[in-house]
């Protein structure tokens, strides 16, 4: 198993960008910057989805996350930053230490007990070009009909809830 192939190298580069961006999300002082970092990591993830030959989902990722969710985030962040300039950045306290300890533990445990075996599995077994729009749509409306309905219900609830939250009491 040689890891020196262009695919792997490009993957490593993408992964490094993603990890750096995610770190930026956590450690940027300025929420707008962390939002930007998040956008970057999302876009990188979309590219990674492409490499997993899930173009549909990659594009959806961009449309949904980069296109809608992050714009919402930026909107809110800007509103908030207009109000209070002082940013809430992490102070080094017992939480930081404890949390990082836990995180490291998580990485260690999962990484060593669960992930190492997968280093051997290199060849993707799913047929190439799986999950085209047609296939996804069929699956979505046949096999996953009930979850789909449930999700739609959830979205409806979300819409109503957000409208209620945002609505000013009529006087």
């Amino acid at each position, binding site marked *: 198993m040689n890891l020196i192939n262009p*695919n792997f190298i490009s993957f490593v580069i993408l992964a490094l960008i*993603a*990890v750096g961006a*995610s*770190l930026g*999300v*956590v450690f940027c002082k300025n*929420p707008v910057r962390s939002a930007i970092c*998040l956008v970057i*990591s999302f876009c990188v*993830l979309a590219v*990674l989805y492409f*490499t*997993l*030959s*899930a173009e*549909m*989902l990659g594009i*959806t*990722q961009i449309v*949904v*996350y980069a296109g*809608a*969710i992050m714009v*919402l985030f930026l909107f*809110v962040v800007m509103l*908030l930053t207009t109000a209070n300039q002082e940013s*809430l*950045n992490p102070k080094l306290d017992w939480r930081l230490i404890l*949390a990082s300890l*836990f*995180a490291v533990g*998580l*990485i260690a445990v*999962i990484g060593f007990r669960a*992930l190492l075996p*997968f*280093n051997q*599995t*290199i060849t*993707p*077994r*799913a*047929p190439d070009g799986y*999950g085209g729009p047609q*296939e*996804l749509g069929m*699956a*979505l409306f046949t*096999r*996953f009909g009930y979850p789909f309905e449930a*999700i739609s219900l*959830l*979205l409806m*609830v*979300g*819409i109503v*809830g*957000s409208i209620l939250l*945002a609505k000013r009491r009529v006087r």
Partner: protein
Amino acid sequence: MNGVPLGGYLLLGLLMFAIGVLGVVLRRSPVVIFMCIELMLNAANLTFLSFARYLPSLRSDDPAMLSRQAVSGEMMVIFVMAIAAAEVAVGLGIIMAIFRLRDKVDVDDLNVLRG
């Protein structure tokens, strides 16, 4: 993408998840906490997709079966995205509502529910 071990994707997902957890625990601004939650969700998505692509634990080699399983993995991702959208809509709404009450939003100040 050939030549990349599944473990690589999983490790990346794991790292992003851990970073998200760190952010949730560390940051005090609710918006950033939300962002970190999104990060965790995306890490989970990545894991789903990579498993869907590699299908390590599937015994059969029938391509129809394989693609079926793979598609189920993608379904999960779609559902997670929808849930994330709903969650963000409501969560940001809540933040805005809080923000209307007090002009500085710090999670540690929102301890009205202290027992």
